[in-house]
């Protein structure tokens, strides 16, 4: 991995290494020649790309707003020209970029995002002119399908993110209209080859990272929207599986990333796991779950709902596969994070068979407590302050929630707090005694 930061570190170390006789001057020169100059221009390049995409988006959105004013004085023929003009301008820009500027990321991203917005503005203006009734789902689907080829033709990533946003919105609209959004999945996978290509080029490049953030966030929202929710409580298994799969996939394929920003899958996954585990310590997620409560009214479509089960099972199996594969590589904390779907699937099945909700609540409390403790201790062991804080945050949240939890009696809560507290103090005592002996 030729990361700029790593190279900077290596080049800083070179003089000291030569002084101490670790490297000869010749070897140091060879190293420099091998890795080459650090690309100092890359910051400028990123700024150019960012501003080009931002500028094009603002102009495109401005055109949409201007046309949305719905100028009364414009005749239908003027409106026709106005509705097509931004799109043609965008197409000319994109075509020119393909011929003359195909090596400039800034031009490719900028022209692609402008054309993407122009397509939406064209269709909306026509809809406004002819008072077309508000079929938002169809509008979004048409818009997105006309946009997504730009991702590949211009090798541009902003339209890919835009497409993910649009398809997620479409899924939401479909569910709102009491339809189903099953087609979200095949339609969303259209951008996977683009992501895979970016990752193959350099998995820690700005492009790959931005795409990975977009995909992780989109999945968090879209999974719930695309599900039929015919089987109450299945979301518990699906979302546990989703976050654990993101987290484990992140540590498997993107484990070397130095910063949180470069670890979107792990960051989103870990945050999701902690939040979910916290929610699962309450009673409400576990009430009315399982087959006895199967929803069969018209807005729940039984056939698309089959995909819900496939998705939950697939996420669970994928996480298990990664867990087994990573047993030798990862520490216990990482594996514990990946264990959430196992815990929640077990609870879901047991409660589905009629067990009391307290089974799941107690199990989730134990799970979250262990997660907090393990994160904190791993953080202390690796001198990683961020992990220590995250672990302490999980523990404090759990403690505060249980202290104010009116579901459990005062006496039980009091005793539990005292026992756990004594446990901590005893552990400290043992550690101090041991280190004194050493």
């Amino acid at each position, binding site marked *: 991995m030729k990361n700029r930061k790593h190279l900077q570190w290596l080049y800083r170390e070179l003089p000291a290494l030569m002084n101490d006789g670790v490297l000869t001057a010749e070897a140091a020169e060879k190293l420099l020649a091998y890795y080459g100059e650090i690309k100092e221009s890359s910051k400028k390049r990123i700024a150019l790309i960012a501003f080009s995409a931002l500028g094009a988006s603002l102009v495109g959105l401005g055109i949409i707003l201007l046309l949305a004013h*719905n100028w009364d004085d414009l005749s239908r023929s003027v409106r026709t020209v106005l509705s097509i003009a931004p799109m043609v301008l965008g197409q000319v820009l994109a075509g020119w970029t393909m011929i003359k500027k195909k090596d400039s990321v800034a031009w490719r991203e900028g022209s692609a995002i402008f054309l993407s917005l122009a397509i939406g503005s064209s269709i909306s203006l026509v809809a406004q002119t002819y008072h077309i009734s508000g079929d938002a789902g169809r509008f979004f689907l048409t818009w997105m399908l006309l946009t997504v080829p730009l991702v590949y033709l211009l090798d541009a990533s902003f339209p890919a993110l835009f497409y993910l946003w649009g398809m997620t919105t479409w899924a939401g609209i479909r569910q709102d209209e009491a339809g189903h959004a099953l087609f979200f999945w095949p339609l969303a996978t259209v951008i996977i080859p683009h992501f895979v290509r970016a990752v193959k080029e350099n998995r820690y490049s700005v492009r790959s990272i931005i795409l990975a953030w977009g995909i992780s966030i989109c999945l968090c929202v879209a999974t719930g929207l695309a599900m039929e929710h015919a089987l109450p409580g299945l979301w518990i298994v699906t979302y546990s599986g989703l976050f654990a799969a993101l987290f484990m996939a992140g540590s498997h394929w993107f484990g070397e990333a130095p910063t949180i920003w470069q670890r979107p899958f792990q960051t989103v996954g870990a945050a999701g796991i902690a939040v979910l585990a916290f929610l699962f310590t309450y009673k409400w997620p576990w009430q009315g779950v399982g087959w006895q409560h199967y929803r069969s009214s018209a807005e729940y479509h039984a056939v698309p709902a089959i995909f819900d089960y496939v998705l939950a099972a697939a996420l669970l199996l994928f996480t298990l596969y990664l867990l087994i594969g990573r047993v030798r590589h990862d520490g216990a904390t990482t594996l514990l994070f990946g264990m959430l779907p196992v815990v929640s699937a077990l609870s879901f099945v047991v409660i589905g068979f009629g067990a009391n909700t307290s089974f799941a609540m107690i199990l989730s409390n134990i799970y979250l407590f262990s997660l907090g403790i393990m994160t904190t201790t791993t953080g202390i062991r690796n001198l990683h302050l961020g992990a220590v804080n995250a672990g302490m945050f999980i523990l404090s949240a759990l403690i505060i929630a249980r202290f104010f939890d009116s579901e459990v009696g005062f006496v039980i809560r009091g005793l539990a707090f005292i026992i756990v507290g004594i446990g901590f103090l005893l552990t400290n005592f043992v550690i101090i005694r041991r280190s004194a002996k050493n």
Partner: protein
Amino acid sequence: MNKLKYSLGLFAVLAVAQISVPVYMIWHREATLRDGRQFRFQTAPVDPYDAFRGRYVALQMAQNSAPISSDEKFASNQKVFAHLEVDDKGLARIVKVTSEQPAGDAHVQCRVSTMTDSLVYLQFPFDRYYMDEEAAPAAEAAYFEHSRREVQDVYVTVRVKEGFAVVEELYIAGMAIKQFLSRGVEEKRF
């Protein structure tokens, strides 16, 4: 170079597809406005706070249901055809609903919203009239006034061709809405 030609070719196809969507939308509606048969649909008073969402008038038809015989069954959201007639006041009236498309232009394609034993309730393909951002509040006031007084003089003209409907104009007190509003402005000036 060949790769560029190939991409450009694909891009040309995409560009044509992109342009053809609004162009087809425009063409289909222009053809309907030009050749379609005109019907006047009386609109029902709408809750004034709900009547204008942003920049358009939410249109609700006074007659949004039609009688059905007991052996007819429609599914919710099913595509159906509402057969139209013109009553003695010159307003459109739905006489019956069928799932088969009839010949001629006196019918409009709708979707079934709900059913009772004797009535089928319809969702019309026209439910909005877009307005200039600045004219909308005045239109709201006018619309409200004309429905509060229970003067049933608000209607919308729709052109229909082979079941496809395009909204033409919204009328209040016999005047096109823009004309009605500009008259209001002049009255206030003096």
